[in-house]
């Protein structure tokens, strides 16, 4: 293994997590399509999951709390996608669009 390519430390993993989270956040605010927003949310969840495993690996020894938390995040994300998609299908079949800025009928 080349010595230039170093084994990445905690900082790099957290950097990756931050970048991923920021992309998600940006996507969340700029997207108007509900599916795009859902994807952005998934990105942010995964960013959080990465930081959990990183801390578990580098900061704590002999404990699996961070990994277990990650499992939870994955499970929750999967469930969320199922429910979210089901709702989107219903909305789409009624309104023929998934533009969240137009979904404000209750406030009228």
């Amino acid at each position: 293994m080349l010595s230039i390519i170093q084994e990445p430390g905690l900082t790099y993993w957290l950097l990756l997590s931050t970048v991923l989270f920021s992309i998600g956040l940006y996507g969340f605010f700029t997207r108007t399509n509900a599916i795009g927003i859902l994807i952005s949310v998934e990105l942010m969840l995964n960013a959080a999951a990465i930081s959990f495993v990183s801390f578990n690996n580098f900061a704590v020894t002999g404990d699996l709390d961070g990994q277990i938390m990650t499992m939870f995040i994955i499970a929750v994300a999967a469930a969320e996608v199922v429910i979210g998609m089901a709702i989107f299908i219903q909305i789409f079949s009624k309104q023929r669009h998934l533009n969240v800025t137009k979904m404000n009928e209750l406030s009228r």
Partner: protein
Amino acid sequence: MNTYGFFLTNIWLILLIPLLSFIIVGLFIGPKNKKLAGIFATTSIFVCAALAYGATFEYLSLFPLGAEHPVIVPWSVQWMPYLENLTATLGIMVDPLSLLLMMIITTVSSMVHLYSIGYMHGDPGYSRFFTVLNLFTLSMLGLVVAPNILQMFVFWELVGASSFFLIGFYYTKASAVAASKKAFIVTRFADLGFLLGILILSYEAYHLFSLEAFAHLSSYNAFDFNFLNHPEVINALSTADGALLTFALVLLFIGAAGKSAMFPLHIWLPDAMEGPTPVSALIHAATMVVAGVYLVGRLFPLFGSSEVALNVVTYVGAFTCVFAAVIACTQNDIKRVLAFSTLSQLGYMMLSLGVASPLHKLGYLASNFHLMTHAFFKALLFLGAGSIIHAVHSNDIWQMGGLRKKLPVTHITFLMATIAIAGIPPFSGFYSKDEILAAALVNNPIVFIIGLFVAALTAFYMFRIYFLSFCGEAKSDGAKQAKESSISMLIPLIFLSVLSVVSGWFPFEKFFLSEALVHNTPSWLPIVASGSGLLGVLLAYLFYFKKTTYANSVKNGFGPLHTVIQNKFYIDAVYLFVVHKIIFRFIAAPIAWIDRHIVDATMDKTAYVTKESGLVLKKIQTGNIHTYTMMFLLGGLVLFLLLLGVGF
């Protein structure tokens, strides 16, 4: 203890049969087959009558005439257990008084049922009529057989309800609806007194059980008549708090006065004549209206312990008696005359109870005797009046006349009942009135004179309607074309006319009391009593048969007074004034104001504030998901910074 024969052992059938008949006729037969409904309902009441007579014969064979007549309860089940010694049972109590009432009710009711088959023929509400009539008979029987005051109250309300249904039977007629409401409200007002009386009385009686001296009575309940009428209980109650006992008894009497239409709660009875005539005969003459007399009679030993309560009974009875008789002389509607006559005779029974005392029971006896004879002849009078109305198609006695030849059977039976109520021997009314007058003479001469005066008035107004409707010339087309009624209407008339004669010969004293009464009545009393009746007949004869001008000159002589009497002393107007001008304006109107401006307004303002604030707050809810997340993010940031400032 099961030494009773068939009738007493199965005495509960007397309630079960009308109940089943009520349900079957009302739900199953009535809607499909009208004719069968009438026959079925009538048959079941005839069976009840047979049971009542059978039970009486059995009772008399166990305890013969003149012997001790104990109160027995052959059947009872636990009904409403509140506490030990405070449990209401549903049962049947048998003693001479309840047997007498059972016989009267079933006899008159079966006759009225039979009569109604003809009278109500072709009416659209035919089967409804028989259904409610059965319900009424059931309730009335339940009332008189009640072994405790609570069961009595429940059935008391049931008779009130069935009376309400039957007065308003022609519910498309506004006057019938108004009359039924009036009857219901007035009697309900009186029932409040009854209920309060029950509460006070049973509360006081219940507290006796904690005393050592009443340990041997611990198998009784505070509601039981047996307990309330027990000599030791009466003694304890009247020595503990005599005033409270009197108060409770007067409250009970208010209930009785409402049902028996005593002044000033009498206003509903004349209006109740809006119901079909058989109903007037059964409910508003023979049975339901005597429930008040029965209540006082049932608790007579208790009433006897309070002189004030007895005086209230006496004077209210005496006043109603003379008051109603005077009005009856001026009315022109045949049923109204009979209604006021009923009021007057009920007053007679009440005053008779009032002048009795535990030591001198003649008045008590006479009251129940008169209750029986009156039930028969007054039911007969009403049924006869129904037959006349059926033939003439009018209630106005001035539209009748000359019906003697056209309605021969009705004429004879009506005449017999009229003689009976006028108190002329040997018809039944004479015997019972004679006993009442004898009881009054011994205890209260003023009441005696009132009684004598009313006896003359009764004879006068009854013969007035007799002469006007049956004698002379026919005064309208209806009267000219009148035809005798059908056979099913005539049989009850004939049967009841026989009873109106012979019921006076019933060995009443021996049936009720074991010891012989001391009769210290002067020998001139029967002569004076029947003489006053004959005087009334003579006056009516001169006024209305001889076609003299006396009637008009007397009427003109009284002038304004006659108008006042004809308008029933404006009692109804006084009630209307009190209700509309005082209760509505000074009680109901402020309450309505409070309801509208305070109770309702609180709710309305709460709703208004909620709505308005909702309108304002809804602007925050843009429905834009990006706004929400931005807010969430900002909130999270602020929270984070705050935590940073506090802890880290």
